[in-house]
């Protein structure tokens, strides 16, 4: 038995990083919100019968635990610990509202999982309001074994939407770059994707040379990135399903900072083939490049407005890097770049909120590099973080959180912060560094 256990551990050691269902990234909630909504998520009932063929005595995934963890991570909810639950109802009709109100919860989530004869599952859940004593939302969702975690995230999204008024971003993915050392002490770079809670990590590319700047296609099927695999930076687009990669830009000099346009047809990128770092828009269908900037300064790190009407980029055409914006018309006509940031001597690597109202950036203050958010309408700049080497901010597709890279105990980790700076969490690898997070768009299916 012990031998078997050690063998399993050995397998984890070998395959651990890329196995699905294995949390390579672990999440610590470092700061919650005062006044988060108290909610109870009751373990879902399992209608599977005894140890007969193919059936099991417990559900294959603890859906309620995944939902509770999602809601807690958002910073908006305070799920009641399992041990404090005052009953195990699995349907609204079984709920003793008075008892749950006495526990101080505003809302209750109940549900059950039923295995079907064709091997699929039916997951049913209800979100109940304890004061009105009524159902706010309820669904039956058909799922497969390998999809049950995703089903749980979809349930979290529906609950979040019902109570917060905006769609949740739990059923989404993140992409990031990890750096570990192999047995010979050489660096190994991996480009990985995972669920938004760090589970189901899939390594889509491994290299002995640096990988950087992952950017999701809007349909979530491809990732653009920079690889130094052939000794210098080049831009690639890779299919997540097939793993097939296509080299997009390999000009002399820089081929960097790809950013997918909202319509999925173009990449904004940085090339230095015509002299120094300039922004271009690469048409993925035609393979043509349209030059956007023209000066002696560094222009890089383009990112699109959500409506595709222009880009924000980093430039040191003034003194030191600052953010600039430029309009790009449908016919390719471009406006004159105008400066967006004025507070502080270093503002770079913009990420624009999905509603276009906020711009997150790396902002230097008192010698530290922190994540700040600019409200475009008022020009108000709010510094969200307190660490000193923060970078690569990326908005969640519902605009609620910003994921970014930082340093913690001499290691590269990811962290997320709510746009109001009140909720925080940290995501770190079992070993090595993780950096350059990119939050996906909403899934389209």
């Amino acid at each position, binding site marked *: 038995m012990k031998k078997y256990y050690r063998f399993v551990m050995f397998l984890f050691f070998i395959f651990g990083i890329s196995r699905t269902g294995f949390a390579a990234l672990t999440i610590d909630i470092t700061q919650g919100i005062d006044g988060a909504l108290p909610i109870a998520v009751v373990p879902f009932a399992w209608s599977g019968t005894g140890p007969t063929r193919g059936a099991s005595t417990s559900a294959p995934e603890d859906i309620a635990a995944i939902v509770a963890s999602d809601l807690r991570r958002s910073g908006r909810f305070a799920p009641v610990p399992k041990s404090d639950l005052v009953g195990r109802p699995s349907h609204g009709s079984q709920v003793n509202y008075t008892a749950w109100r006495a526990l101080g919860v505003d809302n209750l989530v109940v549900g059950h999982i039923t295995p079907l004869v064709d091997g699929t599952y039916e997951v049913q859940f209800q979100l109940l309001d304890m004061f009105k004593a009524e159902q706010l939302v309820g669904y039956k969702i058909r799922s497969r074994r390998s999809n049950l975690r995703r089903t749980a995230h979809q349930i979290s999204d529906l609950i979040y939407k019902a109570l917060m008024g905006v769609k949740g971003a739990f059923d989404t993915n993140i992409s990031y770059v990890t750096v570990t050392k192999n047995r010979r002490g050489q660096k190994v770079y991996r480009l990985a994707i995972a669920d938004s809670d760090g589970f189901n990590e899939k390594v889509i590319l491994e290299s002995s040379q640096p990988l950087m700047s992952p950017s999701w296609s809007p349909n979530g099927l491809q990732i653009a990135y920079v690889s130094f695999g052939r000794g210098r930076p080049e831009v690639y687009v890779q299919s997540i399903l097939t793993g097939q990669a296509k080299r997009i830009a390999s000009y002399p000099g820089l081929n*960097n900072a790809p950013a997918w346009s909202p319509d999925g047809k173009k990449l904004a990128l940085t090339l230095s083939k015509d002299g120094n770092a300039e922004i271009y828009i690469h048409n993925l269908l035609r393979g043509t490049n349209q030059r956007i900037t023209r000066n002696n300064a560094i222009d890089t790190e383009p990112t699109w407005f959500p409506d595709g009407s222009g880009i924000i980029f980093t430039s040191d055409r003034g003194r*030191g890097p600052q953010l600039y914006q430029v309009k790009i018309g449908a016919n390719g006509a471009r406006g004159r770049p105008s400066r967006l940031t004025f507070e502080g001597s270093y503002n770079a690597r913009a990420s624009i909120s999905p509603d276009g109202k906020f711009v997150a950036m790396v902002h230097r203050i008192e010698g530290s590099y922190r994540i700040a958010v600019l409200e475009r309408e008022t020009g108000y700049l709010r510094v969200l973080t307190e660490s000193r080497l923060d970078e690569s901010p990326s908005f969640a597709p519902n605009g609620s959180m910003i994921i970014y890279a930082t340093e913690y105990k001499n290691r590269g980790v990811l962290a997320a912060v709510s746009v109001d700076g009140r909720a925080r969490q940290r995501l770190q690898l079992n070993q090595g560094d993780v950096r350059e997070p990119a939050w996906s768009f909403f899934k389209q299916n």
Partner: protein
Amino acid sequence: MKKQLSIVLLISVFGLMAGCSSTSKEDTTGETSAAGSDKTSGADVGSGSSATEMKSGQQDALSKRVVYFDFDSSDVTSEAREIISAHAQNLAQNSNLSVVLEGHADERGTREYNVALGERRAKAVKQLMVVQGVQGSQIQVISFGEERPAAIGHDESSWSLNRRVELLYSGS
């Protein structure tokens, strides 16, 4: 030959580190002189010394294959200028030689901006070499930004070693 040079490089880097980290004056003078030629060559050439000394000064400069930069700057310092000039003369006289100028940045700030900054540093070095008669075709510029640090610490003593352009000869 290559091994020898890398040892020299290592020694000069050690010398630099000793210079940065040490606070005691006695220690500093002791270590830099042991490390050799870090500071002497510049003064010798400038004060118009004899031909043999000139030559050894240039040899010292040639043995250095890394030049360093200030934060967020691609301005070539006077110390770097001398090293670059020695290599420029060497390349101009030996058109069969070619060099890769590898630009790097420290970890502060954003990664893509740092790749562009590393390129601008390497191009500043290239510019100086071309002015001194090196053919553009002898020079290749690559930037790794902050992706390949020479020192892995998170403070100025490491950062100052990482803001650099490395000169890598090939075809010799």
